[in-house]
């Protein structure tokens, strides 16, 4: 299984496509990935060629880090169970999940700060379970950075090199290199207490990279920073990691963060991996009800068979609906697909910057969707026609994409623009 065979998103001909392109956090991602990917692919090919001669013949991009069947419990609490995934060299992976889902435990096990009860952790194809954390070649950025507060920025960054007994000149050279890389020149004599949150994070990053680790692990790297700076740092970090080509894994509970930054997202829930895939895969083909609910904005519907066009659903079946699956026909416009459009009432209208977020009520459901500012204004209580063109139906512990049957029978070719 190779989770990151970069599926370049080509839209399926029978698929009206994400209608609310402007709303979707993936919109940028679709256009945004390819340059970095091409770059990395070339480097991977290089690496594979170099490694290949020394070891076995090159298999398709080998996983740089992989976990198989890893389990960890603390007393009676199982923090991680049957955790398996792999990450190819040079990629950035995100461990995404709600708090308490085991993601930090997984990260700490890779670093060697926790010992798994069962299962194997491999780095560069070698089992590292019994390798001491100091010998694993891992750079770790802690949630609160854990900078040495009694040392200057310079000494913080130099710490790892000094521990390796590097030559004095080499240390100065390397630290200056990292200060330049992280744009911290001139601040090397400061103490962590004299830095801003963003600067501290960059020092933590530089410190982790100084000893040239094989693998970079980041635990909630943006959690301690205020929202405004967070976005900047996110793209900065992504650019840095791409530039350095270092295999990295970061932990987050924020789906936007994972989606925006990562090549591969590993979704964890209750200690288990729910699904591993590119952000787009997870969004378009959620494998489990949890992923369908967790990724993207969604509303869960009880007994979705009551909706027009979904009459074939089993009784009482649940499904989740994303905002872009719901289309509000602007009042006054001709109604498309008249026979599957439903009458609904506008419950609320909220301004969301580039568009409006509209909540509509029908048959006891409350659906959320986007609505362009260009269309005639909606007022609360107004009757509108809406169309639900697809849902993710939940079947036991699986999620399946179900399209509106009335639309499918009528063929395709329509795009819904809001």
């Amino acid at each position: 299984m190779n989770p990151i065979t970069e599926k370049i998103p080509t839209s399926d001909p029978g698929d009206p496509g994400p209608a609310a392109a402007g709303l979707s956090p993936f919109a940028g991602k679709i256009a945004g990935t390819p340059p970095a990917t091409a770059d990395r692919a070339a480097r991977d090919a290089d690496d594979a060629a170099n490694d290949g001669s020394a070891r076995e013949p090159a298999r398709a991009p080998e996983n740089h880090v992989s976990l198989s069947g890893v389990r960890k419990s603390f007393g009676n609490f199982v923090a991680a169970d049957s955790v398996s995934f792999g990450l190819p060299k040079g990629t950035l992976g995100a461990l995404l999940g709600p708090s308490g889902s085991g993601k930090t435990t997984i990260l700490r096990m890779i670093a060697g700060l926790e010992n798994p009860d069962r299962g194997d952790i491999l780095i560069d194809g070698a089992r590292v379970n019994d390798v001491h954390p100091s010998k694993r070649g891992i750079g770790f950025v802690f949630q609160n950075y854990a900078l040495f507060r009694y040392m200057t920025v310079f000494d913080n960054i130099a710490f790892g090199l000094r521990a390796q007994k590097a030559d004095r000149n080499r240390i100065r050279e390397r630290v200056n290199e990292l200060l330049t890389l992280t744009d911290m020149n001139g601040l090397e004599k400061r103490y962590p207490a004299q830095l801003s949150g963003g600067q501290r994070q960059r020092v933590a990053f530089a410190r982790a990279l100084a000893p040239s680790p094989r693998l970079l692990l980041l635990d909630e790297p943006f959690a301690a920073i205020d929202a405004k700076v967070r976005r900047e740092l996110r793209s900065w970090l992504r650019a840095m990691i791409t530039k350095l080509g270092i295999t990295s894994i970061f932990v987050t509970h924020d789906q936007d963060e994972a989606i925006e930054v990562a090549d591969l997202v590993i979704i964890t829930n209750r200690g288990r991996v729910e699904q591993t895939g590119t952000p787009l895969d997870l969004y378009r083909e959620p494998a489990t009800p949890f992923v369908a609910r967790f990724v993207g904005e969604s509303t869960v519907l009880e007994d979705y068979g009551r909706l027009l066009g979904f009459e074939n659903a089993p009784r009482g079946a649940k499904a989740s609906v994303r905002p872009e699956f719901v289309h509000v026909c602007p009042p006054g416009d001709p109604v498309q697909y008249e026979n599957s459009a439903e009458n609904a009432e506008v419950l609320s209208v909220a301004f969301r910057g580039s568009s409006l977020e509209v909540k509509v009520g029908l048959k006891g459901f409350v659906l959320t969707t986007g609505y362009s500012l260009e269309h005639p204004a909606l007022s609360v209580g107004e009757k509108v026609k809406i169309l639900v063109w697809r849902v993710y139906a939940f079947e036991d512990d699986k999620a399946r994409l179900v399209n509106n049957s009335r639309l499918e029978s009528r063929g395709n070719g329509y795009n819904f623009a809001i």
Partner: protein
Amino acid sequence: MTERRDFRNDKNRLWRIVLIALSFLFIVAMLVLPLAQVLHGALERGFPPFLKAVSDPYAVIALKLTLLITAMTVVLNTFFGISAAWAITRFEFRGKGFLITLIDLPFAVSPVIAGLVFIMTFGRLGWAYPFLQDWGIRIVFAIPGMVLATIFVTFPFVGRELIPVLTARGTDEEEAAILMGAGFFRTFWKVTFPHMRWALLYGVILCTARAMGEFGAVSVVSGHLRGKTNTLPLHIEILFKEYHTLQSFGAATILVCAAILILIARNVVESVSKKDDFHRARQGV
């Protein structure tokens, strides 16, 4: 240092004055007056007799012995205290709660019992006596026994100061150091030690004060051999019992002065460390 909000109504004010006055009265009556009495007693006949009492050869030997025992105790207890605090705050293990309770045991047990424990272990009736005899080691009624007894009594001071500090700091920085390839000693000296230095110094000072004044446990194991196993507190007691009031108060003055010096050191350490912390706190760490 910080301005308290003032609830300046008459009733509260009255209470405030009464409570403050009571505290002062209590401390003056119970602590300051007796100490002043010691000084007064020592200097009652003027300075020369006082000097003579203080420079009495037995008093000097007792002082030297006290300092020796204190130094050994403090060094050993610093080491054990750091080890215990480290083990308790950095590792998860069975019996941790029990260990924490044990550290506090000397606070609960009477020093006399501590002394008897060592007599029962290493003395003529003790189970370890034959082995010690074989090796020619004397513990009871000799310096080693007195050091052991003092260690027992002063053991909690260092550990008790360090545990809260190490707990509050967490293990992140140490984990970061280890992941960067640092060994145990580098991690300890460069990362952990700077955090605990003030607490450690504070604990050491308290431990010193207690060790210098220790009477009960040491009294049991010393055997009261004048010029050999008499520490200053024991020497004072003997002088007093022999009605050498002046000499007794003279020797006591030495201990009182030492105590005052330690108290000053304690206050300096406290204020400097507070400033240090305050400084860092103000900068947002």
